[in-house]
């Protein structure tokens, strides 16, 4: 039976909790209610209150407590009900968790996970893609899966990792993406991108829900005789530069696509690395497609205009291949 994206993450956490008694989950409304997106449904009944901890409405305390517990040898998985709310815990994430190992050699093995991204009319505070805030913070790892298979394998790797990992789950994928995944234990390594769809005429480097926008565009391009390669970054920090540069070397044309807003988004960083290390392979300018520099709007026509889509990718791809 196919497994949804949300179920894959749930399974991954569940299996890690079965495997390691030090793993526990903590967050708002995750126990009795099973989480705003039901990602932790059933965990309270199975693992009990000790390991499924409902907290007050306090993101800084959730992250802070996860740090403290991890310093004591536990492996907390902290939920932000919406990734937007991680802003409330920013100091704990970027100043406490990210810097412990560097400053005084104390490992902080913890995961902060939560739903991110738009397309569900959540408005400015339930739709953001906050990954770039943290990609700029050395000491953190940042993961954003696109498939159910990767989501399960990556959440397991994140839980087993000995550094703090931020795990952003695009909420529009939770129940839309379904696929057959192996039963039982497997992991997907952090820091490794994958070629989601091989191609030869241009590369679309992306992650999260935008992988499917890229796929939709690639299928149309195929009919037009253009073969697009899609690179799914999977982990944004550390960045798998090798896979990105390898694809650029192969296709000589590249689109960097993300749902996060343009300025300061990870596309700019990747563009810089391509300019520095693969300039000689380029046959055309590097193109970025991202949400415009605005808050995520609520009203459907506004949000539709805000989000990158296949039409926007197609337009740029066609132009790029004419260059």
């Amino acid at each position, binding site marked *: 039976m196919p497994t949804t994206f949300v179920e894959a993450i749930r399974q991954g956490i569940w299996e890690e909790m079965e495997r390691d008694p030090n793993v*526990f989950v903590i967050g708002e409304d995750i126990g009795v209610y099973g989480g705003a997106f039901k990602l932790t449904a059933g965990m309270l009944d199975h693992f009990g209150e*000790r*390991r499924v*901890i409902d*907290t*007050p409405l*306090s993101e*800084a*305390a*959730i*992250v*802070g*407590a*996860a*740090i*403290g*517990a*991890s*310093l*004591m*040898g*536990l492996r*907390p998985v902290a939920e932000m009900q919406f990734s937007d709310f991680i802003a409330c815990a920013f*100091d*704990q994430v970027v*100043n*406490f968790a990210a*810097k*412990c*190992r*560097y*400053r*005084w*050699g*104390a*490992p902080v093995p913890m995961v902060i996970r939560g739903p991110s991204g738009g397309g569900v009319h959540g408005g400015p505070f339930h739709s953001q893609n906050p990954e770039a805030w943290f990609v700029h913070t*050395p*000491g953190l*790892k940042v993961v954003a899966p696109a498939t159910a298979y990767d989501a399960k394998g990556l959440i397991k*790797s994140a839980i*087993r*990792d*000995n*550094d703090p990992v931020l795990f952003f789950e695009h909420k529009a994928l939770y129940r839309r993406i379904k696929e057959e995944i192996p039963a039982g234990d497997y*992991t997907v390594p952090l820091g490794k991108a994958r070629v989601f769809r091989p191609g030869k005429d241009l590369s679309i480097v992306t992650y999260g829900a935008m992988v499917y926008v890229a796929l939709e565009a690639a299928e149309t391009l195929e009919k037009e005789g253009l073969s697009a390669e899609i690179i799914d970054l999977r982990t944004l920090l*550390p960045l798998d530069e090798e896979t990105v540069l390898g694809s650029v070397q192969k296709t000589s044309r590249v689109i960097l696509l993300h749902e996060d807003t343009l300025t300061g988004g990870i596309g700019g960083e990747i563009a810089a690395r391509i300019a520095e290390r693969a300039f000689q392979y380029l046959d055309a300018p590097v193109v970025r497609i991202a949400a415009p520099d605005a808050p995520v709007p609520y009203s459907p026509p506004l949000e539709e205009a805000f989000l990158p889509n296949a039409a926007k990718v197609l337009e740029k791809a066609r132009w790029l291949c004419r260059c």
Partner: protein
Amino acid sequence: MAAVEPLGLARASRAVAERADPNVELARQFLYYMSLMREVEDRLERKLYRQGKIAGGVYSGRGQEAICVGAGLVTEPDDMVFPSHRDLGLYFIRGVHPRQVFAQYMGRVGGLTRGKDGNMHMGDLRLKIVAIISSIGASVPVAAGAALAIKYKGTREAAFVFFGDGATSRGDWHEGVNLAAVQRLPLVLICNNNQYAYSTPLDKQMACANVADRGPAYGIPAEIVDGNDVFAVYEATRRAAEHARAGLGPYLIECKTFRMSGHSAHDPGDYVPKHLWEEWAHRDPIKRLKQRMMENGWAGQAELDQTQARILQEVDAAVKWAENSPFPEASALLENVYEPPAPAGEN
């Protein structure tokens, strides 16, 4: 009476007194750690800083030594402690050597952070000391997390977190205390209310009269103690620790004291009304402790002098050691940002 007794007899009678009164040994420990803290900080602030040997700032707990020492001596080796920046004595109690502190301030590899961070930003997981970060108060939810882990494991330790009056204005402090209260976590909250946060006096920090008033808002016990009376701090912390270890949840202690320095070495503190310095100088916690020891016959002047001489010797040697500790190599810059990757084939 003791003064006219021959020395041998005085010693014998003191031994008897000690068996009867555990305060004697306790007082000696208080005196040692408080005086050591004072001497190390004086050396840092008044000598090494002025000589340009400290790379950054110096934060001292002058006049507040009774708090971290009184509370620190209640902690057990398996307890988790979260000192703040005026709690140097706690480091010594936990087993950090003064030479590591000098090296830390000088940015040398002999410091607890090997030059990665400075001043009081130091911790050692083996000694169960967690390093603070500069955004004061941020340690409180982290300490709540350590207490949560203790409850999770079902052991009898407690977490002890230290902070100033200013920290209690930060949201993290409130979130951490509230979470610990709701979860009934074994957390002892120790406030050094020294009446100033940098230049901000207490009446601009909060509208309630006492930090302890914040306790009932979270449904936890809170008490106020004279922060310049090391015995009072010790006794209050014992009550708090007992409460926490019994599974009754967090306990807040407000230690009223005064910051007998500027915020840091660069700050003369000239915004503090002069009469306050004078008033509080009379309540100096080390002076008071010595007086009590003498009055109770727990120690004579000779013993007090000996303790001070021993400390001076230790501190001299520690400074020398730190000055000989090398600066870190630039190649250490990128070490420990992340765990080094495991060898291929391992997960």
